């Protein structure tokens, strides 16, 4: 699986072509490459290498595991997901898939662009990001459901004036991600540290996709049952588990079993909505929802942490602006991951926080940070 995921990444890069005479302007002007992107085509980085081994991990007895169904299905009734495939609830693929595709399109113009991204690249990528009903619209309303809800009974309170500022943790999209992304686009359009701006956008959007999975499963219970499709769409564009896409490409490349566990958890949510098809969801079945969310939280957090782990290592292998880009990535994703890490292992999280707040190319500091990640996010 790891090799397949890696191949997928390579394929994306290869699809860009090796030429630096890409179309850097959406108006169609052919512009020349303003310089190579040092992030692309780097040799394998030893410090970033990671071989996932979770053989010692024990899964919860209530986890949904369609890959290896036990006799009692770990307490899950038989459901539509038992065949280990995603069956759409809605009539067609959710819009989340197109947002994930937009992310990939942005990648080709920014962090996977073989040329150093130009202001025109940032503008073009921003158009991908800003499409009505696209990524920007969802970043601006995304909630981090690991935090308490905004008081009151408005499930979408974060869309109201003043609420993101008052509840920045719950309203993570508008309060944390949007300012990061907007600032990065703005500075990128001014040609200020373009690789770092691209890395910040990449890191923030990866966290957005992570948040979206659990958030969509939450709203799937009371707002729109199709939102469960969206959860899978945000993770992997609803591709089969052995053909990851979007965020799943990143996870599968560094933690193939973690990817499988995330896929299991998403299928758990699908199973829950097959067992309980009522809208809103039936309180009697909330236990299955809780199980699915817990399973997802554990696996998905580890998935994001492994991405961070890799980028921490990349700091040692790159120099110049490329290193600065890795640092920017680690600062953003590390900062976003801190709350969850602290909730799992406070001491190690503090150590990790010290590094991600101010990443350095000190090998011992890098190793310590990676060790902290391994300690906190041991199993998917």
């Amino acid at each position: 699986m790891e090799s397949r995921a890696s191949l997928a990444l390579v394929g994306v890069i290869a699809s860009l072509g090796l030429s630096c005479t890409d179309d850097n302007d959406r108006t169609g002007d052919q512009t020349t490459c303003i310089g190579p992107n040092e992030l692309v085509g780097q040799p394998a980085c030893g410090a970033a290498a990671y071989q996932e081994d979770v053989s010692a991990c024990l899964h919860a007895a209530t986890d949904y595991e369609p890959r290896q169904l036990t006799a009692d299905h770990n307490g899950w009734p038989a459901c539509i997901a038992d065949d280990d495939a995603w069956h759409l609830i809605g009539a067609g693929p959710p819009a989340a898939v197109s947002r994930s595709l937009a992310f990939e399109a942005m990648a080709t113009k920014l962090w996977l662009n073989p040329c150093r991204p130009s202001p025109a690249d940032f503008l073009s990528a921003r158009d991908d990001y800003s499409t009505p009903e696209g990524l920007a619209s969802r970043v601006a309303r995304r909630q981090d459901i690991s935090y308490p809800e905004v008081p009151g009974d408005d499930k979408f309170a974060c869309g109201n004036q003043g609420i993101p500022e008052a509840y920045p943790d719950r309203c993570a999209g508008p309060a944390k991600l949007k300012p990061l992304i907007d600032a990065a686009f703005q500075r990128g359009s001014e040609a200020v540290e373009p690789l770092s701006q691209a890395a910040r956008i990449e890191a923030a959007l990866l966290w957005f996709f992570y948040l979206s999975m659990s958030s969509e499963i939450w709203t799937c219970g009371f707002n729109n049952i199709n939102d469960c499709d969206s959860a899978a769409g945000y993770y992997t564009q609803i591709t089969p588990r052995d053909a990851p896409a979007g965020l799943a490409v990143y996870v599968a490349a560094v933690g193939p079993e973690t990817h499988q566990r995330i896929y299991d958890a998403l299928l758990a949510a699908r199973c829950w909505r097959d067992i309980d098809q009522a809208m809103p969801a039936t309180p009697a079945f909330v236990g299955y929802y809780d199980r699915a969310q817990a399973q997802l939280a554990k696996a998905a957090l580890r998935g994001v942490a492994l991405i961070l782990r890799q980028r921490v290592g990349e700091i040692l292998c790159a120099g110049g602006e490329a290193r600065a880009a890795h640092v920017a990535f680690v600062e953003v994703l590390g900062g976003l991951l801190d709350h969850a890490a602290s909730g799992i292992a406070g001491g190690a999280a503090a150590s990790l926080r010290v590094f991600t707040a101010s990443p350095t190319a000190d090998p011992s500091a890098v190793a310590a940070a990676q060790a902290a990640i391994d300690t906190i996010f041991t199993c998917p």
Partner: protein
Amino acid sequence: MACPSRARAPRRALLLRLGLVATLTCAWRAPAAAEESYESVVVTGPDDDPDADAGRASSSVDRRDLDRRLPRSTPDALRYEPGVFVQQSAHGQGSAYLRGLTGQQTLLLFDGIRLNNSTYRQGPNQYFFTLDAHAVRSIAVTRGGASTRWGSDALGGVIAALPLEPSTPPTGTAVSPRLFARGATADRERGLRLQLDLTTVTAAGIGIGFVGGFGARRATLLHGPPVLNPDRSTDAGALPWVPRYKEYDPTLPFDRQPTLSTQLGTGFDELTGDGRLVLQLREGERLTVAGYAYREYDAPRTDQCPPPTASYDQCLTYEEQFRHLAYVAWDGRLGAIAESARATLSWQEQHENRRLDLPAANLVGHGVDTVETWGVTLHAATVPLAVADGVAATLSYGADTYFDWVRSQARHAYTDTGDAVAESRGQYLDGATYTYGGLFTDLSLAPGDRVEIDGGARLGYAVAHARGDPASGTAPVDRRFTALVGHAGVSFAAAPPLTLLANYDYSFRAPNLDDMTARQQTGPGFQFENPRLHPERAHTFEAGGRLKTVALVADLWLFETLLVDAITKVAMSATDCPPSTPQCTGSWSRFQLQNSPSYSELRGVEAAARLRLPYRVSLRATVAYVWSEGPRQGSVAEGVYGVALGDRVPLSRTPPLHGTAEFAWTHASGVSAGGGLQWAAAQRRLAIADYTDGRIPKYGTPGFAVVHLRGAYRLDTDLVVAIVVENLLNASYRFHGSSVNGAGRGLIVHLEAGHWL
């Protein structure tokens, strides 16, 4: 030259009234309108109104109805008409449903000139709002198909506004400056109009008349109590998605919210101007040169300000919504074969400048669409011809053609960087053209005193042309449509005062440029083009009875409309989106217009009655019901609220059972009083497209009853003061499919002052 008496009109007026007879014979209107008794204006049907269609299910609103009801807009003026249901997607918009159809499936006319153009979209639109109610003399509503006379689009019916005419002076020359002022509390509306009425008539009856004016109006945020989801025990929440309220505190549970009243995404500004010059050349012949300008500014679309679940500051605003209309009309006689004839040459411009504020992306988008339409119409009617012993026949005939030229552009810019991007295409394809019209004839026979029969046919055509846009994956359009349609009807004075009527009508609507080229965010979701559509057709069967006595006038109609190849919104998958259209794949739901594989059906009943009582009191009531169904196309997930998911499903936004009641009393002193009741039952039969439409509460739209009180004082023609206490009981209400709730309790005040010099 006086207006005709209100004697029973011949059935052939079915074809002629709206654009010919009424215009010709009412070239000048009487200035002393108040001379007629107040209650006489409470009309129920065509027998009371020369503008309505005698043989069809029809009604009309005249100037004095408007002065009494004080509607907020021209569409609003139709709310008391039987079978009419007015939906509002915004405070500054309004779209009338006729027999369950609206938008491009109904036809709007102004002085016999089509307002419909090739960019009229499926579902409600705002274009009737772009007629200034001050410039309207009357509005006639004909329910049911009417393509024979009026061509494409007239499937659900025709709404025909007639303009204000110069007054007939009491002496040879007269000038009347007038001031109209208006205010309303619910939206802090303030409006003013200055009008000049000037006429000179020679002893030989030749003269020049002019009436025109200009006005301005501003309305701010509309106040009205919130409509609640009828089933609050569920997690759909107490409040429907739209509108949002200024007072809303998201951190409080609903039962602890402050009083919610101020609806966000409402308000608008308006400028109007009009001038109508009429040259009375000789008896029975006149030349009219007229121009009308309507300009609405900064009118947010309520259901998109913000859209459901979006950030509070996202908004789609019509920064400019203009209609400019100019035309020359000749009315006259050309002998027996054209005892009455009319020719018009018109130019019209419909202009929209939409602004999308998307702070989530620090982006502002602009879409600018302008449609210019040139039109020529010719029609005439013979004198009654004796075709057999005791059988008279009148033949009317004509031709019309219109040409649309569409300009459409879109661009967006980022507010933080200033980067601006011109998009490859606008909502429509720039430079697209659409030519449409036809030839028609109609024969009316009167074999005896009790029976009238008529029938007619039209050969209609439409030609659409648009260049493709490879950058957005838009295919070119080069389509031609023809249609042969017709109608037949009979009226039988069975037992006077009872008349029985029956009609069959076969009408059509050719796919227009909106259907075949537009990409747009609509209420239910993103809609993309279908260049392969073919015309939709409507078979209308209707039967009615009309009772008319001195005290009571009543109409009852039953109808059945079968839509064949109906063009409906079909829910599509993201994989069906056209290439290079991320706003389609990204949308929560997507639609494409498609011809239905089998027939769709609308059937219903409409009734209206007016009772004149002693002491100058009159009562009027209407009721209408439409039931709709069509083949299920597309799908939504199982388990969603309210949506029927059988093989056949309700059509979108079908109005519920609804009705009105009015009473009026007037005194010889000029004092009058009255009241109105509007009510609607709940509409819980939702279509698939309705489910994703933020305008429609998830459990359907609750029923309501709302009461208005009216009072007025008229001092001859010099002074009119009218007051309406709207929504006396401060009821929560919303017309099904609307984004805005009805106005809360408040006052509307109208002042009119003028003098004949």
